[in-house]
């Protein structure tokens, strides 16, 4: 098991290295001079040259990359124009917002986490629960209702669902405040009430896929021989379904969940925009609009880290669920 873990972590590190090199090349080796975007008005050639020097853009690419990586791991000195000393994890300096990129990230990352993690828990419970129920009650009105629900979810867009939720719960019924982000450590109730609509909207859309997937998986598993064996032993239905069938049916759900959660953590642009909350996704889009290269670079890297981490987690969960995986 520990060998399995080491192998997976090693390949994850390699992936991250490759991603960081690629993003670095894409943004800093593009033919367009990044400095023009960072210097909004009244840029004379001397000032441009100074900024270029500050950014180290006149150094060879390899040492630029090394400097960037060193900044992430140990911190580095960026020079007075970029706020001086930049502590690890240093992601550079944003000329657009005039702050260290790591400070921006530290502000918006908790927002995205607060949106995605509760939403993921909600959509997994809802989706897998619906799938199980409709599989076990196949052909009944319950099954049809669950399928109808999931079809609706799959065919609607988030900005539509979000707008309807806002209209009903915030503006008509006035049950909830206008969505906003409050730290969970400051006021958990305000944190939840400010984000609950975003969770519900995301969960409604995502749970559709999970409901259909887990229904299909469960139906397939129920026809497996080992489920019949479990019944032949005299096990009661909850144990047959819960302990024997569900565990075998859940593996593909884990895979998809890993991809979805990893992807969503990289930014939920539409959700954040619909509910007017500034998270990682909107920050990334804003950075692209204003040509804020250090911030773009950081958000892309963070998204990649989440996807890779989610995949490692999926692999570990796989191994925990299926003992045969540990052999490989």
């Amino acid at each position, binding site marked *: 098991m520990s060998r399995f873990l080491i192998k997976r972590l090693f390949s994850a590190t390699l992936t991250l290295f490759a991603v960081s090199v690629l993003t670095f090349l894409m943004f800093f080796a593009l033919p367009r001079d990044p400095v023009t975007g960072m210097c909004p008005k009244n840029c004379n050639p001397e000032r441009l040259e100074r900024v270029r020097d500050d950014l180290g853009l006149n150094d060879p690419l390899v040492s630029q990359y090394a400097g960037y990586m060193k900044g992430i791991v140990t911190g580095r000195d960026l020079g007075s124009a970029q706020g001086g000393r930049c502590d690890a994890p240093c992601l550079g300096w944003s000329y657009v917002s005039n702050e260290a990129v790591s400070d921006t990230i530290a502000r918006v990352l908790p927002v995205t986490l607060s949106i995605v993690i509760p939403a993921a828990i909600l959509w997994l419970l809802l989706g897998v629960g619906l799938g199980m129920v409709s599989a076990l009650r196949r052909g009944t009105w319950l099954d049809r209702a669950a399928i109808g629900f999931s079809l609706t979810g799959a065919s609607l867009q988030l900005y539509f669902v979000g707008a309807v939720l806002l209209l009903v719960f915030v503006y008509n019924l006035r049950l909830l405040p206008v969505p906003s982000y409050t730290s969970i450590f400051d006021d958990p109730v305000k944190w939840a009430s400010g984000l609950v609509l975003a969770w519900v909207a995301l969960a409604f859309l995502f749970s559709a896929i999970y409901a259909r997937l887990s229904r299909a998986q469960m139906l397939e598993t129920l026809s*497996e*021989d*080992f489920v019949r064996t*479990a*019944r032949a*032993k*005299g096990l009661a239905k909850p144990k047959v379904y819960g302990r024997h069938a569900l565990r*075998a049916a859940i593996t593909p759900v884990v895979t998809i969940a890993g991809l979805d959660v990893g992807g969503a953590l990289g930014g939920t642009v539409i959700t954040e925009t619909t509910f007017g909350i500034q998270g990682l996704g909107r920050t990334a889009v804003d950075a692209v609009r204003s040509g804020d290269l250090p911030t773009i670079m950081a958000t892309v890297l963070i998204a990649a880290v989440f996807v890779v981490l989610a995949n490692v987690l999926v692999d570990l969960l796989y191994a925990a669920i299926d003992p045969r995986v540990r052999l490989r």
Partner: protein
Amino acid sequence: MDSSEPSPSGEPDDRPAVPAQRSDQDAYLRVSDLRVRFDTEDGVVRAVDGVSFAVERGRTLGIVGESGSGKSVTSLAILGLHDPRRTTITGEISVGGRQVVGLSDEEVRRLRGRDMAMIFQDPLSALHPYYTVGRQIAEAYRVHHPKANRREARQRAVDMLDRVGIPQPARRFDQYPHEFSGGMRQRAMIAMSLVNDPALLIADEPTTALDVTVQAQILDLLADLQAEFHSAIILITHDLGVVGQVADDVLVMYGGRAVERGSVEQVLRSPQHPYTWGLLSSVPSLHGDADADLVPIPGNPPSLINLPSGCAFHPRCRYADRAGSRSRSDVPELRPAGQSDSDGHLVACHLGAEERAAFYAEDIASVGVAR
């Protein structure tokens, strides 16, 4: 087991009388006029159509037939493992004196694994791939021994693994099915089915998925365990060779009906139904002429939705014409086959006893199968 407990009234035996043979009175399992129908989109499947048999403790009944003959459906119906929403079961199934047909799910569940257990064809798919073998056996024990703690259940499982001939049972307990060989897996499956000392064991093609060398070991093991636990065994197979090795009685099924029934001696030495002849001709014999050709039965097993009229075997039967139009219009009943009415050898064939004897002799001569 429960069946051996004295009845509270003190009466010797007040179980409901079932119209069957006299020897059936002692049988642990009695099945009479069992009919199993499935509703499918294509129509009603008559998977089992009026089958009766009985098995005493300590005896083995071999049920033989091609796939789709209804042999597996019969066993699933006995254990109540059919899908209740689309299956209709009529007739009687009595296990240890209790009528199983019509019991609630919960009541049948309590019998399953405790009074009647089952071994399946492919042990790799029948064992759960994600749980250790030992845990699955211990689980089977704890279902019916809720007071047993984890350690007792483990000890019981290790004992059973040891009993079925698995070396180092305590270490094997913690291994997964994929770490077992095919034969060892089937042994573990047997250990699991016997962990609660059931009086009835149904083995559905228990050796089909195994190597030939392992097959004999598993059959020997079943015979040993039967001697020790004194259980009634139903062995479902398409292989008459397997039946000859371990069964006491044989039931030959075709198209959901019983076509021949009798002791192993009777059915294998003097088979009466042309279908049984066909089955025998398609089994290689170690004792006969090694050059003898194996002769397959022509045609395919019948569709259970649209069974041939009359004798279901008539489209494939070489002798159907000799029985006249009856073979296409009347379903033959199971009747005494031989000279004496009481020897228990039954056959469902329109041909007369002398005709059959003559054709069988002719069959052996033409085909060269020595049995």
